């Protein structure tokens, strides 16, 4: 008998969910978890209602208000604290029987932070949400991806999606990350090297010795940013660290189901010798902390590097794009980024608002003060992260330094909730997009890790976190 053909993790999980093959490249795929938020959710639910359809599987559907909610500590007593769409969202969640982790819930938070914490994201599940950064949850070994409004309505009605099967790309990353270098730096460096569309059309698996030793929350950060290299699907294989992270969480399997689930999850990793449509490699060992200088996540350099000169751009299109980006950012080619004055520091977003992110930033902040002229915020990703950070005394570290300690939400990453960077001002932000106007019209965003953002807060300018002694 011939040995079975080695298969990729993507093929195993995808094939486990195919309801029907519709043509040679299109499948009807079952969805195990559907997550809703207050920006894309209400309109898709309204569309469902207008078509006289019901939610087929409300017990597999969960709702999290995060995009539009205020992050002010005053929000709880304020009728406007839920933002522009929360009332509509509540109305439809009640109507369709969908569980909403509302503002007064102890589990409220950013959907990609709270859903994993609740054990809603599990290895081998198909998870969708009307949000591009759903790939974050692939860091737990799930197949998780972002969908549009029409698809949200379709999943509500049918618990299935018509999908073009993506090709597979394995990114093999070896080498251990140096001190003060994180998953964020790794992701930015990869996007800078391979481009903002390197993953376009692919489902990306991150593997290699660096990934095996990367903590579970770092894997989520990496998979989150894979979207910024164009990959709708990104994931890492689940392993013992994943299982330990998940065990005991509210919606994780309990009792006999736990052992059964784990033995299933162990079979899902890519087989040795499995063929990918494309493979690339990356060496993480020599990596320095990274920061963006322009208006695409691909506009990234090491934090101790100089601002690139458009004259050295690879082609005319890139030259124009770099020139436009420098004009928007108010930067001059050839000057060092270190020392560029900063008015805002934002530690938060689905990329970097988990406990480990706050711990990493606190090492830089402890016993120091936010520099004069800097507004520095920590927006924990969830109420649970807030509680766990407080139990470690980390909230005090930030408050004593002069940071604002805010309530969970997307905050300054999306700038539709009252939190924004004013036009022409500069932010170092742990979020995922430095697009023109993303943090507010005219806002100038530098993406970086929590440690680099913290170093900027206490220095008043872009600063290499390796030059600021860390304090436990």
């Amino acid at each position, binding site marked *: 008998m011939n040995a079975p053909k080695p298969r990729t993790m993507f093929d195993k999980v995808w094939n486990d969910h195919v309801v029907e093959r519709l043509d*040679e490249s299109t499948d009807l795929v*079952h969805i195990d978890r559907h997550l809703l938020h207050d920006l894309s959710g209400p309109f898709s639910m309204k569309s469902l209602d207008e078509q006289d359809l019901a939610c087929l599987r409300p017990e597999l559907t969960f709702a999290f208000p995060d995009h539009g909610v205020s992050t002010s500590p005053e929000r709880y007593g304020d009728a406007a604290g839920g933002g522009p769409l929360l009332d509509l969202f509540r109305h439809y969640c009640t109507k369709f029987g969908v569980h909403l982790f509302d503002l007064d819930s102890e589990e409220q938070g950013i959907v990609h932070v709270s859903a994993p914490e609740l054990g809603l994201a599990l290895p081998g599940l198909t998870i969708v949400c009307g949000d591009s950064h759903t790939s974050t949850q692939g860091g737990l070994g799930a197949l998780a991806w972002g969908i*549009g409004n029409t698809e949200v309505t*379709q999943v509500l009605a*049918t618990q*299935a999606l*018509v999908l073009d099967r993506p090709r597979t790309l394995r990114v093999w990353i070896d080498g251990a990350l140096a001190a003060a270098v994180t998953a964020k730096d790794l992701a930015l460096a990869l996007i800078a090297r391979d481009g903002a*569309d390197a993953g376009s059309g692919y489902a990306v698996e991150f593997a290699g010795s660096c990934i095996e030793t990367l903590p579970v929350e770092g894997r989520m950060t990496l998979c989150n940013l894979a979207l910024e290299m164009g990959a709708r699907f990104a994931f890492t294989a689940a392993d013992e660290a994943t299982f330990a992270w998940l065990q005991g969480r509210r919606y994780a399997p309990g009792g006999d189901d736990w052992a059964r*689930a784990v033995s299933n999850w162990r079979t899902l990793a890519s087989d040795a010798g499995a063929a990918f449509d494309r493979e690339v490699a990356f060496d993480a060992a020599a990596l320095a902390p990274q920061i963006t200088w322009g208006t695409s996540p*691909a506009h990234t350099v090491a934090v101790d590097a100089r601002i690139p000169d458009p004259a050295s751009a690879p082609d005319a299109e890139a030259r124009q794009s770099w020139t436009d980006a420098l004009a928007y950012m108010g930067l001059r080619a050839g000057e060092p980024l270190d020392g560029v004055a900063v008015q805002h520091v934002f530690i938060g977003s689905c990329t970097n608002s988990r406990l480990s992110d706050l711990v990493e930033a606190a090492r830089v902040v402890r016993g120091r003060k936010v520099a004069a002229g800097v507004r520095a915020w920590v927006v924990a990703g969830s109420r649970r992260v807030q509680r766990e950070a407080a139990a470690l005394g980390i909230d005090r570290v930030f408050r004593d330094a002069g940071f604002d300690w805010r309530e969970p939400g997307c905050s300054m990453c999306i700038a539709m909730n009252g939190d924004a960077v004013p036009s022409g001002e500069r932010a170092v932000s742990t979020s995922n997009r430095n697009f023109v106007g993303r943090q507010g019209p005219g806002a100038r965003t530098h993406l970086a890790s929590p440690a680099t953002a913290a170093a900027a807060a206490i220095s008043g300018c872009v600063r290499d976190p390796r030059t600021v002694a860390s304090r436990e």
Partner: protein
Amino acid sequence: MDRLVLLESTALPFPVDNVDTDVITPIRRILEGLPSMVEHAFEPLRFAADGSLNPACALNDPRWKDAGILLAGRNFGCGSSRETAVWAVRGMGFRCVIAPSFGDIFRSNCFKNGVVAIVLAAEQVTALVEEARAGTKRFRVDVERCEVTAPGGRTFAFELSPLRREALLEGLDDLALTLRRSAAIEHFEDVDRVRRPWVYLASGRVAD
């Protein structure tokens, strides 16, 4: 969904790389509703800070005001999954976008809204852009044959899955197709529930 069989139209050359969906529909315009999203589509590129139209932006050039085809750059529609970006592009009159690559979610959203998002090789898109800039003659996008023909006669074939092609030609939508398969979905779940019981949560299991 509206059918799209054959499109004969001028093509607007806009070969800018990495145009993201935040630029196509800025968040504050989304909150103002559909007319504002379309009116302010590509706002940071089409408008100056004082709200006046930027005459240097090709999207404002009156020569292409009736264009139904947008010739875009690499990674067009990257970033946020917001389907509003497609509504705005369609609202501006485009039923076809041609680019060397797309944001995957944007491309998928296009097909849900009767917009054909065509991937061609970078040099083919460049050739189309050059021809579009040289004059405002009509291009031809044939969904049935999966071919784009430039005014000078050069023809490029493009790939479309049989299902996507059929959906455009017949005006079918995925939801109707899927609702017809509800028995198959139910059967899938019945089998899967035995194999992976932990996936299927009981309703109302935990009060919050």
